[in-house]
């Protein structure tokens, strides 16, 4: 199978996964809105949790993989690793935009403010800015080797923020609540809410995989076409 055929197979696989993931997210939204109980103190706004947390989880997965794959690129100098990092960073940026939009919409009725400059919110905003910078850098540098090397370094630095963002609620006095699932004593959510959250986490993870596979395939097709063009020129 040629490089171009392999790349197109990735695009096809990404499209199939994306369709399944979007359907799964729609079904999770129906379950969250219609079949999951309303939280007594926060009211219906608490159901934003089933979007906000899975989007945050998949965004951190995306940027974490950017960091790991970028490190591997600097070590192995394999162009495919750079293309995967590019794809994962793009998906992570869209997912972080969802986190940064749904968070304030949830915060306003519960905290009385759209935004507070606490450590969790501010560091997540910085992570978003770092990856906006990552995409700008990629667009500005034309030499493929330089682009891959510079963006790999920035990708690693961005990913290093993720453990810090997770720990902010322990290290600082924050408005943002503590984790209710990823905690040493186990989840504190009632079973029906936990199941909705876990299904939504699965659906968003699948969306991350679908979008990233599709975006990676598109990058591989672009490269394969350039190789063919160079070979025939």
């Amino acid at each position, binding site marked *: 199978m040629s490089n171009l055929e392999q790349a*197109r197979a990735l695009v096809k696989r990404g499209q199939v996964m994306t369709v399944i993931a*979007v359907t799964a997210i729609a079904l999770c939204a129906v379950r969250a809105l219609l079949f999951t109980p*309303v*939280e007594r103190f926060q009211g219906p706004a608490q159901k934003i949790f089933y979007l906000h947390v899975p989007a945050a989880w998949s965004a951190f997965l995306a940027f974490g993989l950017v960091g790991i794959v970028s490190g591997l690129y600097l070590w192995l100098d394999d162009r495919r690793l750079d293309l995967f990092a590019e794809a994962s960073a793009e998906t992570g940026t869209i997912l972080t935009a*969802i986190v940064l*939009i749904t968070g304030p919409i*949830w915060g*306003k009725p519960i905290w009385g403010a759209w935004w507070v400059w606490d450590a969790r919110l501010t560091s997540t905003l910085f992570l978003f800015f770092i990856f906006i910078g990552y995409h700008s850098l990629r667009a500005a540098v034309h030499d493929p080797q330089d682009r891959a090397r510079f963006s790999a370094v920035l990708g690693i630095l961005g990913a290093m923020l993720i453990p810090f963002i997770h720990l902010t609620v322990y290290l600082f006095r924050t408005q943002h609540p503590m984790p209710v699932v990823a905690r040493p004593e186990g989840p504190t959510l009632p079973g029906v809410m936990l199941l909705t959250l876990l299904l939504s986490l699965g659906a968003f993870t699948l*969306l991350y995989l679908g979008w990233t596979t599709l975006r990676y395939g*598109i990058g591989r097709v672009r490269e394969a076409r350039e190789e063919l063009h160079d070979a025939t020129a």
Partner: protein
Amino acid sequence: MTPPPDNGAYMIAAYAITGVILLVYGWSLWRRGAAAMKDDSAPH
């Protein structure tokens, strides 16, 4: 017992905006994928 606060409009706004983002970005990615699947040797 105090009833839960009536803030369903925020919930609907969050779900609607997320849906729009997923569809707009998903559609853009889908079109780029469709362009990548086109055969270069096919007549334009």
